[in-house]
């Protein structure tokens, strides 16, 4: 089969349209460069009524929102989840990793939790702090100006609290806490756990005339049709196009490899057009990978040539290594004080939590080195499939019978509606060379592209951290006058530590550093081996913090884009 070559030469080819690729597209197009943006999934606009799920009612679907087709329920705006039809991945025996992919313009930013946390000064210097992992080659001062710019461009609510490792920013005002969040604030106070307004990228206040303001439906995971939350399409790619930028979109285009010339420099990419299942080539002066930490690693490892025999940019043999996800462990409690609620008002609020607890502990006094933050959920949410299951299980806490039938069930449902509060601990795992993804030479996806094989195991440090989470949640529920639901997971269940990949914060596969032997990119996310290839997703992260990674992906992508602009202007690349 002949590869079809496009004769246009782009200044920059950006692969992937999520947080990293979207930001690079915006910055490079705004600077006047001709950009080809290549996305593996179809076009998606949150405002398109055909695909929109926002403000749908459960009864509009025969399955009432059940998660048979979409892992997070059928209103969740992610096309693709831990499984994508025709795109498998494999595991080394005895290891585990779950790999979420959203195949659509904007990628995972369409459904993400919008928890937008800056890394703090300590997060860039983990090894100096406790001897684990490695330090980043950059520090907070390098990234701070970009966090500031991201805050102002995208919009994030929160409060300046002057915290040492949870830096201040340019925040929109936060929404008031909901009732169960007030219970949480009280409960946390009793244990000395601080609680602050959450920091999330929804517009509680106008930031420009192009985007709408939050109307408090609580459905950010469905992607906001008035663009009041951050999605890469609505906030970066479409604005870049409207701004007169030269952005050519290639959708349903699954990149196979970065192509190179005899000098080993990148010449563009080759991709499979999913519609006609033929291979095409695009030519560009610079290639920017923002396909996600694992997808970019896969593309590089599949880009073999005589100049780069083990994959592009892989002279260190570190591509795919140091893969790590946030840790996660959860618990829920039944809070009798939240029973018999008045349903006189709408408390959907913004999507997710209005309050949270950043890490408060002192690890030098604990048996694990890194922290976690606490996410809180609860409230009188929209009923969907599963609502009302085990309607009166909580009777057991009052010595009453469980089960039965008849009019009493209605009363039980109403009595207990909104009385459950849940906690998610999201923490930092240590980046380890032994945790990695690699190419599985025996398996291809339906486009004929070799797939990834994962090798990942948690260590005792992450398990001890999860134990701390469980003990903390139990205490919080007790403080709130509640009952822990379900069995508290013990050692045999790794204290409820979720499988790697389940928190969907995977980072580290192409880590940055000053030494080409121990890192894949330099501090500007440029491959050490190939000066016209950059990585703007979470691959270059040296370590995940006890924060969510999206805000840092965008700040670093903007920083890398500024560097690319400068290098292109100086004709260095």
């Amino acid at each position, binding site marked *: 089969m002949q590869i079809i070559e496009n004769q246009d030469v782009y200044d920059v080819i950006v692969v992937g349209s999520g947080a990293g690729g979207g930001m690079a597209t915006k910055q490079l197009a705004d600077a006047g460069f001709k950009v080809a943006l290549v996305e593996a999934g179809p076009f998606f606009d949150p405002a398109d009524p055909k695909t929109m799920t926002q403000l749908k009612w459960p*009864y509009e679907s025969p399955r009432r929102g*059940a998660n048979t087709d979409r892992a997070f329920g059928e209103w969740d705006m992610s*096309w693709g989840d831990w499984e994508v039809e025709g795109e498998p991945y494999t595991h080394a025996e005895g290891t585990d990793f779950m790999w979420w992919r959203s195949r659509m313009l904007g990628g995972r930013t369409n459904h993400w939790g919008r928890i937008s946390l800056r890394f703090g000064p300590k997060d860039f210097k983990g090894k100096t702090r406790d001897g684990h992992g490695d330090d980043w080659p950059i520090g907070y001062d390098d990234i701070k100006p970009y966090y500031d710019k991201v805050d102002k461009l995208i919009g994030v609510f929160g409060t300046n609290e002057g915290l040492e490792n949870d830096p201040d*920013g340019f925040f929109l005002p936060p929404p*008031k806490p909901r009732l169960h969040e*007030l219970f949480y604030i009280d409960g946390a106070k009793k244990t000395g756990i601080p609680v602050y307004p959450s920091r999330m990228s929804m517009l509680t206040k106008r930031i420009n005339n192009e985007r709408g303001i939050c109307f*408090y439906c609580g459905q950010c995971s469905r992607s906001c049709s008035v663009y009041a939350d951050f999605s890469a399409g609505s906030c970066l790619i479409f604005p870049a196009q409207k701004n007169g930028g030269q952005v050519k979109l290639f959708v349903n285009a699954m990149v196979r490899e970065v192509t190179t010339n005899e000098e080993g420099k990148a010449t563009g990419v080759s991709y499979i057009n999913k519609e006609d299942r033929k291979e095409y080539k695009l030519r560009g002066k610079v290639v920017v990978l923002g396909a996600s930490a694992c997808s970019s690693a896969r593309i590089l490892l599949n880009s073999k040539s005589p100049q780069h025999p083990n994959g592009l940019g892989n002279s260190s043999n570190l591509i795919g290594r140091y893969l790590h996800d946030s840790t996660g462990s959860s618990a829920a409690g039944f809070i009798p004080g939240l029973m018999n609620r008045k349903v006189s*008002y709408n408390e959907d609020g913004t999507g997710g939590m209005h309050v949270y607890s950043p890490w408060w502990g002192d690890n030098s006094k604990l048996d694990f080195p890194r922290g976690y933050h606490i996410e809180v959920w609860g409230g009188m949410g929209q009923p969907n499939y599963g609502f009302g299951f085990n309607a009166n299980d909580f009777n057991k806490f009052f010595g009453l019978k469980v089960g039965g039938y008849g009019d009493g069930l209605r009363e039980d449902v109403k009595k207990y509606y909104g009385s459950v509060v849940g906690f998610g601990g999201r923490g930092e795992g240590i980046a380890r060379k032994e945790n990695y993804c690699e190419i599985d030479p025996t398996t291809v996806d339906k486009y004929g592209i070799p797939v990834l094989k994962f090798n990942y195991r948690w260590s005792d440090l992450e398990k001890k951290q999860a134990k701390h989470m469980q003990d903390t949640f139990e205490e919080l529920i007790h403080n709130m006058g509640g009952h822990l639901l379900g069995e508290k997971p013990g050692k045999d269940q790794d204290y409820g530590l979720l499988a790697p990949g389940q928190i969907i914060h995977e980072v580290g596969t192409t880590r940055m550093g000053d030494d080409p032997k121990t890192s894949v990119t330099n501090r500007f996310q440029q491959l050490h081996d190939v000066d016209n290839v950059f990585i703007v997703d979470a691959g270059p992260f040296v370590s995940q913090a006890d924060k969510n990674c999206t805000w840092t992906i965008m700040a670093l992508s903007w920083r890398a884009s500024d560097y690319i602009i400068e290098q292109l202007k100086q004709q260095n690349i």
Partner: protein
Amino acid sequence: MDRRKSIQTIILGASASAVAFHGCRVENTEVEVSTVTETKYFGRTPEEMERLEKLNAEQLFNAHEMETISVLSTIILPPKEPHGGPIEAEVPEFIEFMGKDIPEMQMTLLGGLMWLDHRCNTKFGVEFKTAQLSQQKQICDEICWHNPDVSLDEQPLEIQFFALMRNLVVSGYYTSKVGIADLGYKGNMPNVWDGVPQEVLDQHGMAYDPEWIGKCVDQSKRHIIAEWDEEGNLLT
């Protein structure tokens, strides 16, 4: 509506759409969201639509079983004015669909329905659906309680069946239009969140911390474009 007809509606629905307008007034702030709603697509991808059509074309329960499900549903959750019951909530159709969508439930549902008739025949010489209400309740009373500390998987089929049916009936009802009205859920529409009403705070013995609230959004200024000083203090 028969199954074939409903498929036709779904296909036709692809081109039919309705404009829904939601508005509400909070203080002096008008919130307007105009959304064009595809009535039958509910945001499905073509692949998802194909699967739905395939499931809709299949039949899990025969007419007798559907009638039995209807009868049992209304015993589990009797209709109550003004918000009806399982029939108005289309619970039997929902159970038929879920049985196909999550096939792991099929044996419990089909087997449980057989058990109901067998038990009712043995005891009263009549099928469950045509038995008297008092007889039907006698059967249900045998199987409607369970020990919540023992996993359902380890309990007899008929106990599992009743628990599953109760879950599906309650969930089906409270995810329907009439059930949501009965519950009183006020969300899923544009509004302006400005905190928990005072009487609700009072009921639960809670209060807002004035310092915290002082940092929160002033909803009367939400339309004014945000500007900050160099320290990140919001000026507008």
